[in-house]
């Protein structure tokens, strides 16, 4: 049958993917880029529905049913999710993509001709897709559970490193064994599937919740690779290129995130944060100074320059709107108000940007790490709202600290620092923060939203 027209249309959708991703990486064109990529996907799906096939009975009813159900659930979930729960949502979506790659490979094996040796590229690709799709599926679900909070970090497997390495080697060896058999044993494929699913769980479980962004990004690239492998199985170019684009972008994003924390990917996976070390601050006589909202209000009102360092606590307390209101009031008083955004603040790179954008904070007020640090010396008051590890001086001073070497916001350079925090508990890295005991530091305990509301009232009255 004549397929060249369809193949050409596939090429068009590949081009739309590439242009879309390119446009997604620049602020002015990003929204348009997303639509371009979506159009590419729409075209690719239409072509795959029309593409002339040799055998099979099309089963359009099943196809339409699956598409409607999936599109309906996906659209509703995307509309309803709170902006703060975005990382969890992305992780969940990603896991479902992985599950699809897993199902495809499973069916491919189910349909594999009997008594045919498996030592060939097609079987190898299918097995690889099954492996990577399964990891992406269960791994993303664990990442989702950790971010949602129903899987605690304290849930630790015994000797996770040993378990993971042994399991990985076992899976690879078992996969190799399956491929050398004279014919396919479907039961063995199911065992392989089960092992891969378990590996996805044991791979992500020991990694701390604070590192989930890196893991989600990595699993995202896994799903991309899974899609590309499925593309090889079906000899389908759009799946191959689309999948590889995601695989490459996910890998780059993962590396960028690790660089922002000054850690290697291996260090994140093996779990650098899980090992305790460095100054814990315990056993020393340390005095914490508390700030009162009324004093702080006056200080803020007469400051020239105020900088906010937002962290995950801001997202949890949903305090982005209050902080913006405080900003507006102080701006009217002539205060120069800005936000210092650490690359890994929150649970995902750009998490804080999205959050503050939701509260209508103007773009130019968000300073990136280096710019913010340049401004720090001339800043009168720094408000650290629900951030901890990203302002921990141990990253600079204490080589034994697990976060040593991570670039931080130098809030200690400012004339005074006020930390808004619920308690003295540690951040995700689980280490004490010497900043809280610093000479220029004061603490304002309580829920970030409640504290900011009180602060706002006091500023209004002052």
């Amino acid at each position, binding site marked *: 049958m004549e397929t060249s027209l369809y193949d050409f249309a596939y090429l068009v959708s590949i081009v739309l*993917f590439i242009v879309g991703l390119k446009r997604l990486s620049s602020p002015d064109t990003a929204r348009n880029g997303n639509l371009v990529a979506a159009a590419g996907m729409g075209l690719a799906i239409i072509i795959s529905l029309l593409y002339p096939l040799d055998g099979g009975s099309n*089963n359009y009813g*099943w196809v339409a*049913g699956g598409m409607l159900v999936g599109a309906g659930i996906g*659209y509703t979930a995307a509309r309803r999710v709170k902006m703060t729960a975005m990382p969890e949502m992305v992780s969940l979506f990603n896991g479902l993509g992985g599950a699809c790659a897993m199902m495809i490979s499973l069916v491919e094996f189910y349909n594999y001709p009997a008594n045919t040796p498996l030592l060939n590229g097609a079987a190898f690709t299918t097995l690889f897709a099954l492996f990577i799709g399964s990891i992406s599926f269960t791994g993303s679900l664990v990442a989702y559970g950790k971010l949602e909070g129903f899987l605690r970090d304290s849930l630790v497997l015994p000797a996770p490193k040993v378990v993971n390495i042994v399991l990985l080697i076992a899976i690879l060896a078992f996969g190799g064994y399956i491929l050398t058999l004279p014919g396919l044993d479907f039961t063995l494929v199911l065992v392989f599937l089960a092992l891969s699913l378990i590996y996805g769980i044991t791979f992500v479980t020991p990694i701390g919740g604070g590192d989930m962004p890196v893991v989600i990004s990595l699993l995202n690239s896994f799903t991309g690779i899974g899609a590309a492998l499925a*593309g090889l199985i079906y000899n*389908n170019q759009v799946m191959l290129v689309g999948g590889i684009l995601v695989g490459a972008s996910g890998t780059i994003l993962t590396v960028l995130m690790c660089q922002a924390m000054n850690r290697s990917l291996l260090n994140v996976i093996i779990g650098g944060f899980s090992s305790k070390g460095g100054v814990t601050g315990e056993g020393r006589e340390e005095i914490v100074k508390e700030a009162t909202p009324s004093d702080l209000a006056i200080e803020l009102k007469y400051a020239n320059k105020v900088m906010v360092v937002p962290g995950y606590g801001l997202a949890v307390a949903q305090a982005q709107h209050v902080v913006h209101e405080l900003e507006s009031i102080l701006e009217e008083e002539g205060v120069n108000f800005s936000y210092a955004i650490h690359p890994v603040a929150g649970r995902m790179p750009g998490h804080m940007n999205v959050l503050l954008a939701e509260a*209508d904070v103007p773009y130019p007020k968000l300073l990136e790490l280096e710019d913010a640090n340049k401004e720090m010396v001339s800043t009168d008051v720094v408000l650290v709202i629900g951030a901890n590890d990203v302002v921990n001086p141990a990253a600079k001073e204490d080589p034994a600290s697990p976060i040593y070497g991570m670039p931080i916001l130098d809030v200690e350079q400012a004339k005074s620092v006020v930390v808004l925090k619920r308690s003295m508990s540690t951040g995700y890295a689980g280490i004490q923060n010497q900043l809280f005991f610093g000479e220029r530091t004061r603490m304002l305990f309580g829920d970030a939203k409640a504290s900011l509301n009180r602060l706002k009232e006091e500023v209004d009255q002052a």
Partner: protein
Amino acid sequence: MEGIISFISENLLMVYILVFAIFLGMEVISKVPTVLHTPLMSGANAVSGVVVIGAILLIRQASADDYLVLTLGFLGIALAMINVVGGYAVTDRMLDMFKKKKRKA
């Protein structure tokens, strides 16, 4: 080993595309401001839902009474469509907020 080599030579064009696409993906994405990391990740995640095409082709090739394959394929399509539609919709929501910002600024 022979099987692998013959697979590569039979699919030489696909292997070429694969290698070029790796370089292309890295070039397209390497320069991204931090602000866009989350939307980009979300958008790329939606693109990875392209795996839905595999599930569509799989169902279309199946015979009408092969219920196991049809059920698995149906599930695959539904899950991947959640990824695709949800992914693009979430990304659009994120970027919508950025755009509003720009207008006012």
